[in-house]
């Protein structure tokens, strides 16, 4: 059901900031209802199971290098020291100024309550519904949160995607911005297509030829164009948040690095940096100062690298916090260690916190949603109160 009122958007804000080609004026302007100094909240869903151990490497852990002979990096490889124990992947170097300005933190060894099956589909569903393990829950936690935001002007939410994603699906009103250009295929998506076509020579050949001759008019295979599209999307998101919206969500795909992770992860980390920097730039200093970005993934990846230069599905991983509204410059979380008895099922990084607690804390801080509502309605089964570690300044 389409509600005409909710389609009206002020275009002046981000048109003035010369937004990307994807945003073209179609709708009539609407007056600003909200205050410029409002808090904003953005979720970035990293689909495919982002390898937290590659992004934020525990270089000082005695066991790390032995588990990942080729993926573990050193200062010589360009690993950027964060706090004497963890280092940031060199491809995320554009984020270092944020780290230094205390606008960036990481939470390590965290995950949703999802265990054991390590399925992308179920894992992403649980990430987006915010449930403990309830596959019947079909609404998103962020959607449920909207109704609980006391200030109505702060409830305007938008999903930057072709259609509404689960995280913002539900009984409360949220808008969708359908981007005009189609993203290039992510590296993991392309690899999956190659696997799909094994055994059918005709299709194998057609795909190989398409990638090779780089039918990049649509940029469907072109990695470089993908970066530009991500930058555009971040710019668009920032623009929308400077206008009427206060809550936004979008996804970055491509993290499923089973094979040849070195090069694929490098590209992905670069894309993630592009997205976060793009948000900061398009929001502008005033809005950025009160913005929180949470980037989260369905689960981490195996502590050991596999036989094809990659990693497989795991459990504990990393969440990223960015924005002026964040108490940054820290790697949060309780590090469990990587020895055999410290790993989860002798395979994955052991999660020592519930990722939902982080999201709850940020919703509490940005929008004053009460802890009671957060645990009863937004994240059923979560324990959360004001003593949460994520709320300490």
């Amino acid at each position, binding site marked *: 059901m389409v509600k005409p009122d909710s389609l009206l958007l002020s275009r002046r804000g981000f048109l003035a900031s010369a937004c990307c080609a994807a945003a073209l004026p179609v709708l009539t302007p609407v007056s600003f209802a909200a205050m410029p100094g409002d808090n904003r909240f953005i979720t970035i869903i990293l689909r495919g199971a982002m390898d937290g151990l590659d992004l934020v490497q525990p270089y000082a852990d005695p066991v790390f290098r032995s588990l990942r002979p080729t993926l573990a990096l050193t200062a010589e490889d360009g690993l950027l020291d964060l706090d004497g124990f963890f280092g940031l992947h060199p491809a995320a170097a554009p984020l270092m100024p944020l780290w230094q300005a205390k606008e960036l933190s990481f939470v390590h060894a965290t995950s949703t309550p999802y265990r054991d099956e390590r399925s992308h589909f179920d894992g992403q569903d649980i990430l987006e519904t915010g449930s403990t393990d309830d596959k019947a829950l079909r609404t998103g936690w962020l959607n449920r949160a909207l109704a609980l935001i006391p200030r109505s002007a702060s409830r305007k939410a938008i999903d930057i995607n072709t259609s509404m994603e689960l995280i913002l699906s539900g009984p409360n009103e949220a808008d969708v911005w359908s981007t005009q250009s189609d993203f290039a295929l992510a590296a993991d998506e392309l690899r999956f297509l190659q696997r799909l076509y094994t055994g059918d020579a005709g299709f194998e050949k057609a795909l190989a030829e398409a990638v090779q001759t780089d039918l990049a008019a649509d940029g*469907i295979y072109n990695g470089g164009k993908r970066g530009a599209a991500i930058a555009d999307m971040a710019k668009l998101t920032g623009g929308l948040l400077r206008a009427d919206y206060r809550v936004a969500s979008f996804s970055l795909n491509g993290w499923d690095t089973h094979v040849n992770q070195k090069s694929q992860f490098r590209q992905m980390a670069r894309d993630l940096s592009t997205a976060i920097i793009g948000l900061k730039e398009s929001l502008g200093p005033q809005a950025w100062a009160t913005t929180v970005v949470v980037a989260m993934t369905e689960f981490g990846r195996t502590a050991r690298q596999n036989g094809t230069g990659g990693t497989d599905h795991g459990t504990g991983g990393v969440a990223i916090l960015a924005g002026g509204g964040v108490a940054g410059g820290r790697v949060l979380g309780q590090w469990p260690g990587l020895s055999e008895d410290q790993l989860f099922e002798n395979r994955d990084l052991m999660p020592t916190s519930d990722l939902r607690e982080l999201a709850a804390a940020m919703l509490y801080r940005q929008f004053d949603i009460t802890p009671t509502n957060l645990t009863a309605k937004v994240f059923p089964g979560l324990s959360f109160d004001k003593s949460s570690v994520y709320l300490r300044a």
Partner: protein
Amino acid sequence: MVLSFSTIAARRYGYGLKPGEQPAPDIDALMLQVERGTKAKPRFPQEGIMGRRETLARLVSVRAVEAKAAKDGRPNPDLRRETQRDADRLLAGDARARIVQAVSSENGFYERLASFWLDHFSVSARKSYVMRMMVPLYEAEALRPHLSGAFSDLLRAAILHPAMLIYLDQNRSLGPQSPAAAKRGGGLNENLGRELLELHTMGVGSGYSQADVQAAALILTGLAVDNRTFEVAYRPQRAEPGAQTLLGKTYGARGRSADDHLEMLADLAARPETARYICSKLVRHFVADSPPEDVVNAMVAAWAESGGNLSAVYRAMLEQKRSFADEPGKVIPPFDYVVSGLRAFGLDADDMEALLKGSDQPEQTEAMAMGMASGMAMPAKKKPIQAGATGTKLTVLALRRMGQPVWLPPSPAGFPDASDAWLSASQLTERIGWARLAARTLGSTLQPVDFLTAALGDAASDNTRRVISQAPSKVHGLTMVLVSPEFNRR
């Protein structure tokens, strides 16, 4: 992997599986689809057959008045433009309706046959202003009602419809020695005469000569299309006088008449070369690029025995073992890809209408077509479909990009039918793009493995099943179902 009859029936002799629709369990059920489809009214032309004739007459009349005024120095370009827009809009609406027809019909085998004959007796809406509105009418009244009866009836209905006569220039053809030619010049046009032998009946290289082509063209002279009412009539002053000999038989020996071309059509329909050509073409389209001889022979026998009854021929085709053999098959053309993709999502006619709502705005360029929608997820099973530009992108625009725009074949020979014609780097890229958009727009409540079963039944290979279950996101899982080799071959 042994496929069930139903899976093959739905995919090779229909537009694919659809959740909630029972696939045909046997040959009788498939033939019943042909019977029911013949009696059903198609969704185009949108105003119905009588309504379209009226629309045509009205718009042509308006144009004629404007043209005359222009000649007298009082042109009205706005009016002229408006009539053009009306015609284009009608065509676009009918094209959408054709897709909705194929997606929502439960008579898949009949719909596939309608597409086959539309391609066999190809005409193009690109030809002229009038044809924009007449081609959908042609399919609805000349082809669909006749494709289950005698081939001779189908042939006559197709060839003598004004759309065919206009498309292949018969309306401009005059006997060189005819009184009309003598009076105002002009002469013979061989287009229809040639295609009648080469494409519609006997097939190229089956033993007719250039002299036969010319004879056919001369026998056809006299046929005229009224440029206001579009009635087809025989006008003696346009006909080439004297007898003509085609393939050894003489026509018009006792003076020319309308009987000549009617007799010629009946004779061509009855020729053994025609039976063999049509049967081979059916097998090549439905079964394999190299038509297995035993299947063709069985169909030719059924043709002979039934006096050219097409239902008997279709049944004979279905009864051959090879017709249901589980072998990696032909790549499906774009229309079949899009239609079977939409069916796999379980879209019914109402869903399609909702998807296409708002698409009847003047065709926007890609840069302007922007989707902005409020998404509300219902707790119930069905999600409301988002309207607007996405509907166009998933239907008529997609077919244009994939090279098979509705009612716009590249030549009288129709669209390419060989398997490798539709498997190329660019085609695959388009299909992947389509699948991603469809997955995102229509698939938000679907699980990829369930969708695989809905779309392919038992036709999915183990590899495909495994890859899809491991996809890095649901959207990509759904996408891969649609671009899998199994979904694109039958």
